[in-house]
């Protein structure tokens, strides 16, 4: 080896050392910052729930006995209590069932498809099958408007939902994307740069949009907001004290079978505060603002559907059949007090449900117009409340499904 070659190699090693001295601490800092932000401020990157669900799939698949998975969006996450469901089935059908809440925020069909594929792979790897799989069909998540909602989240959600094999397969189609996915999934704690900047822009945009509205609020309304913040803080305090293990409700927890903290987990004082929060959140001004934002982001009244998203939902049903013989589609109750479908929206929804029925052949349980639910069962225009709506829906669903469980061994 000539002296110039060895000197060149020495310089190469020196270069790598200099790179490592800068790059490794920077990567460490990025991970530390994202982890600290999540530890301090909860699911601010919208990824914690997804990450915890993915980490818990093996546990779900390994669970013995009759199992049910309810997979869907934040409507499922907030509106379905597995423990209430199981207890109701037990009392009605005398059948022991273990259900899981696999609901996650912002779960449009393209994400749902990846999630269900991942679940199917996990069950296949363990040689197991779920007895019942309920797939939520949320009409306003399949609209044209929703397809364009928060595109900055897409890459990180997909990176987290994809299996290593799926990530690997992208290399041959799009090496650039492959490298991005690997970086997000394995080097950045699941948090993409787009999600951070996009989230910040989204928040700034929201603040700018809401500033004029906030300026118009009366003193009474401002007091109301302050009161609400105080109640929330008190409830969080109660939850921290009374439920130290399952307190982080957005993280998938085997203790609650993936469901959120229920009223039964709380002391009477805490229950009182929780009920008060639901009541306060239904303030007409807040509901009107929430409705407006749902109209803008999701076309919640007119429901102009996106064919691509509908197609992805159909694929999701097919994937669910890979790990369960009984797949059903569920539409959660609609807050009819606030969300009035336009005649065209109503017609489009009916036509789509017929299409889903024909294409999949599965049972569709539609609770959108169910008479048992009214405005007081929701905490906003779309989500069921912890104190009333969730227990009611979980038990209604359990009674309706009890017959199904009676037929199981």
């Amino acid at each position, binding site marked *: 080896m000539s002296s110039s070659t060895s000197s060149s190699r020495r310089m190469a090693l020196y270069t790598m050392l200099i790179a490592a001295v800068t790059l490794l601490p*920077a990567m460490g800092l990025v991970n530390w910052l994202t982890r600290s932000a999540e530890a301090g401020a909860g699911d601010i990157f919208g990824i914690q729930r997804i990450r915890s669900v993915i980490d818990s799939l093996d546990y779900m698949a390994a669970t013995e006995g009759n199992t049910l998975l309810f997979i869907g969006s934040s409507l499922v996450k907030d509106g379905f209590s597995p423990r209430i469901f199981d207890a109701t089935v037990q009392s009605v059908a005398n059948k022991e069932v273990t259900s899981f809440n696999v609901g996650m925020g912002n779960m449009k069909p393209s994400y749902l498809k990846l999630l269900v594929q991942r679940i199917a792979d996990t069950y296949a790897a363990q040689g197991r099958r779920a007895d019942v799989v309920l797939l939520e069909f949320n009409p306003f998540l399949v609209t044209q408007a929703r397809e364009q909602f928060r595109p900055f989240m897409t890459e990180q959600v997909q990176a987290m939902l994809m299996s290593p094999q799926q990530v690997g397969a992208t290399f041959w189609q799009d090496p650039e994307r492959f490298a991005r996915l690997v970086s997000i999934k394995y080097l950045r704690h699941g948090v993409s740069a787009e999600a951070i900047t996009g989230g910040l822009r989204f928040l700034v945009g929201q603040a700018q949009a809401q500033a004029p509205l906030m300026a118009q609020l009366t003193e009474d309304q401002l007091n109301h907001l302050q009161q609400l913040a105080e109640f929330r803080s008190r409830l969080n305090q109660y939850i921290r004290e009374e439920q130290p293990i399952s307190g982080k409700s957005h993280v998938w927890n085997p203790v609650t079978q993936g469901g959120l903290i229920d009223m039964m987990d709380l002391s009477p004082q805490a229950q009182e505060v929780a009920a008060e929060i639901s009541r306060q959140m239904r303030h007409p001004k807040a509901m009107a603002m929430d409705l407006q934002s749902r109209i803008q982001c999701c076309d919640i009244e007119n429901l102009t559907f996106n064919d691509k998203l509908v197609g992805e939902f159909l694929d999701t049903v097919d994937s669910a059949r890979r790990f369960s013989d009984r797949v059903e589609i569920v539409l959660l109750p609609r807050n009819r007090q606030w969300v009035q479908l336009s005649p065209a929206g109503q017609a489009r929804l009916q036509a789509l449900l017929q299409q889903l029925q024909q294409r999949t052949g599965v049972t569709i349980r539609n609770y959108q117009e169910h008479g048992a639910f009214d405005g007081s069962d929701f905490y906003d225009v779309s989500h069921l409340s912890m104190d009333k709506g969730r227990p009611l829906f979980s038990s209604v669903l359990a009674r309706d499904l009890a017959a199904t469980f009676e037929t199981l061994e």
Partner: protein
Amino acid sequence: MLFNTPLFLGFFALFFLLYCFVFTQPRGRALFLVVASLVFYAGWDYRFVPLLVFSGVVDFFVAQQIEGHTEQRARKRWLLVSIVTNLGILGIFKYSNFMIDSVQDTLSFFGMPVSLGTLEVVLPVGISFYTFQSMSYTIDVYRGETRARRNFVPFFATLSFFPQLVAGPILRAKQILPQIERFPQVTPDDVKFGFVLITMGLFKKTIADLLAAPAQTLFNSDAPLSWLETVTGVLAFAGQIYGDFSGYSDIAIGIALLLGIQIPLNFNTPYFALSPVDFWKRWHISLSSWLRDYLYIALGGNRNGRQIRNVFITMLLGGLWHGAAWTFVWWGAYHGTIISLTHLLRRTRLGQWLAGIELSAFRWLQWLFTFYLVCIGWVFFRAESMGDAFAILGALHNPASSIESQPYAGAVLAMVALVILLIHCIDYGIVHRRELITRRYPRFVPLLILGLTFTILIGEPGYEFIYFQF
């Protein structure tokens, strides 16, 4: 393959290992560099690799012909072959549809509407950069400033050198060819400064991407915005294009340094310029010096009292080089005009008197006025159409506009201004403190780590560099 993506990091890491540990001899290295550069270029669009090779083969051959002939007419003829080939490639791929549209619009204006259709051509990335670079080689050989090479591989390695292939800086063969023929030993100072450039380039690019949002708000808006938001949008674009392009140049120069190749800096705190002439000595230096050496001087320079005409033509064509649109032509003509006016003013007594003023307050005014002029130019550069540009300029000069600003508009403006200042501070350090940085490198490491952390944390890999489209 963008510099600010994990894919490029992987590509470069692999390239670097092979470059340093396998291909250690100049011949092998040059060939490996060619292969790596072609892979890099094919990552954009493999269909245009033959075009790049064709451009290189023609100029390699033409240069030998020029050197081989002693008769001036023959030499000139061969040079013409190179110029026509390179400009022909540019004309077909970059300007054909612009010319067709312009003819259509002109005929339609005179009441003779015709439909000439459009050509289905895709603009090959980096075409403006490598054709200029390739042409400079044959011109240098013609002028006797460099000798024609007999070995194609180092020549083509120079032309296709991947760090600067798609967005410059535009290198001269005489600057870089001798380096690629012998691959000088990398020094520890090269490595340190290379890392500073790469890190700060990535940081600048990240900042530029953040500035894209307020700039887009203005330039993509269908409705007029408030005065404050118009100022913010224009300022944000000034910062965006500077951070984006100088960031890219810094990364390119830094990567080259890690390979032992020295490339001159391409920016020197341009918004600190005190006149339009000064601005062009600090902005995209490799292009402005290319235009000066190969176009302005070829037109006669400042001889025969034709300085103003030659400046104007040079800037006009410089504007057109940036893009096939009338907005770029206007931008070039605008800069040609303000540079010409600067030259004319300097010849007057008033100009000489002004030049003699040594008050710092006057220097601040000079700086502010130059920055204002440059920002006006950016409106033409960025606007979608001439109509949009004039509408934005109208809003920019109407502080009494009745349109209300969005909440926090003042805070956004202040942040944009601060960020532009920050980029300049970085640039100042890079240009003027190289020796200090390399001597006391450990002291700068925490800053580099912070810059890189910021970049990794929020640097969106999806944002392309603005100059790729040119």
